[in-house]
């Protein structure tokens, strides 16, 4: 860690655009993705790749564009420019359903749970089991499968026929994660899956991710804020800063200190820029005052 780059010799994020790294076993490749919301540029030029069975930690400050990237991959929003490839094929999801049909499932930051629906209805939202030929909801089957899925994850939800509004933050999050893991997806996008969780529940989810990694069936992109969790659970980290990927390293080659320093430096840089701007404005105001005063 002695040769860790310092803020002086680390180029500004604008120039550190990490190029697309093609590999034959990439399940997902994201190339030159850009997205603007009116005057706000969320993503400038993002390149990302995900190997089969890999757990990729997506890092970045609040508002860096992590969630936007997730929402583009999962078909909720569309990018302004850039392409995506799924198993080497061009991939442009038309909707969340379309992305799901391609095997991509998401846990959103806001969980996308419906407060007024029961636990099992939430777990099967958009994947409801119905009877044939009259498509009435097969509630008993959904209850059974939901219970089995939750037991497998090891999350304790005492009753699955109550509305999710009555559950704690951690339980809600567990249900959102269980819903995703329980699907047939082969790529999971987890946007802060541990945010509202207690230490025990968080550990259970990380254990679950570890188990999925061992199985090697699914590949996971996970947004996390706790760098200890990142190093513990992920194979590789990608850090978004200022709308581009500023760092892309296997977790074995980085440390909590390095990740923290990159973020802190970015924060300092931004604060200095803001201060300089403010000083310039003050100077301008003073100049005008002396001119007219």
């Amino acid at each position, binding site marked *: 860690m002695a040769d860790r780059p310092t803020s002086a010799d680390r180029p500004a994020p604008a120039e550190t655009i990490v190029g697309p790294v093609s590999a034959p076993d990439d399940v997902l490749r994201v190339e030159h993705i850009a997205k603007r919301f009116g005057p706000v540029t969320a993503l400038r030029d993002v390149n990302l790749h995900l190997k089969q069975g890999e757990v990729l930690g997506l890092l970045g400050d609040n508002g860096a564009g992590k969630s936007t990237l997730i929402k583009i991959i999962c078909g909720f929003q569309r990018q302004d420019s850039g392409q995506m490839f799924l198993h080497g094929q061009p991939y442009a999801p038309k909707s969340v*359903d379309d992305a799901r049909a391609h095997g991509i499932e998401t846990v959103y930051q*806001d969980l*996308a749970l*419906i407060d*007024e*629906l029961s636990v099992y209805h939430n777990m099967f*939202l958009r994947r*409801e089991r*119905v009877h044939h030929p009259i498509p009435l*909801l097969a509630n008993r089957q959904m209850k059974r499968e939901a219970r089995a899925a939750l037991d497998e994850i090891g999350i304790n939800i005492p009753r699955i026929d109550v509305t999710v509004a009555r559950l704690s933050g951690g339980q809600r999050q567990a249900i959102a994660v269980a819903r995703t893991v329980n699907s047939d997806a082969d790529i999971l996008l987890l946007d802060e899956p541990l945010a509202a969780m207690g230490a025990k529940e968080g550990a259970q989810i990380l254990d679950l991710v570890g188990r999925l990694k061992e199985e090697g069936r699914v590949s996971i992109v996970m947004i996390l804020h706790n760098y200890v969790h990142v190093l513990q659970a992920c194979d590789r980290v990608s850090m978004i800063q200022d709308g581009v990927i500023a760092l892309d390293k296997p977790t074995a080659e980085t440390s909590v200190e390095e990740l923290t320093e990159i973020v802190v430096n970015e924060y300092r840089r931004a604060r200095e820029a803001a201060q300089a701007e403010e000083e310039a404005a003050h100077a301008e105001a003073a100049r005008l005052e002396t001119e007219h005063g």
Partner: protein
Amino acid sequence: MARVASEPGSPGAPTTPTGGKGGPAHARRAYLPTRHELLERVLSLREGSIIVVTVLVAIYFAVDTSTFLTGSSFKTLLPFFAPFAILGAGEVFVMILGEIDLSIGATYLIAPIIYYKFAVAGIPHVPCVLLALACCMAVGFINGFFTAVVGINSFVTTLGMLFTLEGLTLILSHAEPVSMPGAEITTSQVNVAHVINGAHVVLTETVTHASTFAKTLGEGTYSELIWAIVIVAILQVVLTFTRWGLYTVSVGSNKLGAAEAGVRVRLVIIRNFILCATAGGFVGILEAVRASAVEPDVAGANEILFKGISAAVIGGTLLAGGSGTVVGAFIGALFLGIVYDGLILKGVSADYQLFYVGLAILIAMTVNVYVQRVRRGARSG
């Protein structure tokens, strides 16, 4: 609240004299709560509180007037509630979304006029009904489109639709009442044999005839009630046991979350507005056939609208969306009907009726809120 506190097995129970018996007390605990559970189950229904209130009002009128609990009273009650049960049922689907449809009264008004126009053009009656309902579906589609796609608040969208349709009704009907083709009542003289004092006497009586079409669509005494029960039952099943209902609750409870989960929010909104408008138009046709004519009464249409929404709200559907019940709207309409009918039977002057109905709604909703609080307490306990 007192009932909840005295629940057997609560900390207070063992201090009662019978609680000292130990073993039997335990057995009693398994026995007694069934009654308590029954109460709890009724109250934990979303419609529970309004059922209680409606029964109380019915008991009041049954005790207070000698005529309330009679068959003829029930028949006069029907037109006071069956139409609003259907209107309320449709409105529930829109209100669960957190939206509102103010144009159901206007749709109610224009549907029979459209039916009339098609019938006058020589189209058979049943296709005329279907065509009129298709027009109502178009109205619902426009409501839904402006709300979900253009993004205008549904209150404003449907208010615009209300005036547009009411204006269109006046234009189409030239502000004149029209008779409903197919709903004509014909009379004929029939000789009926009677036995009076042992002698056979043949008397001539006047008998009214209505076509099967008219009897089915509102003319028959119980036809509106049957329609209301069938429609409410079907829509409650749709709401509780189908994906349509699940997505309706999802969009009303968490629109963004529903969209993120892949629910096609716009489709759900448009679909429910179509359902609501169709229900409105259908009731309009039923009522016009029942009366054999339709009066282009714009003010009356707005009163219909308010009663439809009242039925839904009294039945326990939240104006804020996310939760609602079709059966509740049926009971809400029944409550309104009982109050109207009861006041008439009590001989309350027509001038006082609206006043009392208004008070009844306020009192009912207050009791409703109180019972719901008990219910929530019962549920979390």
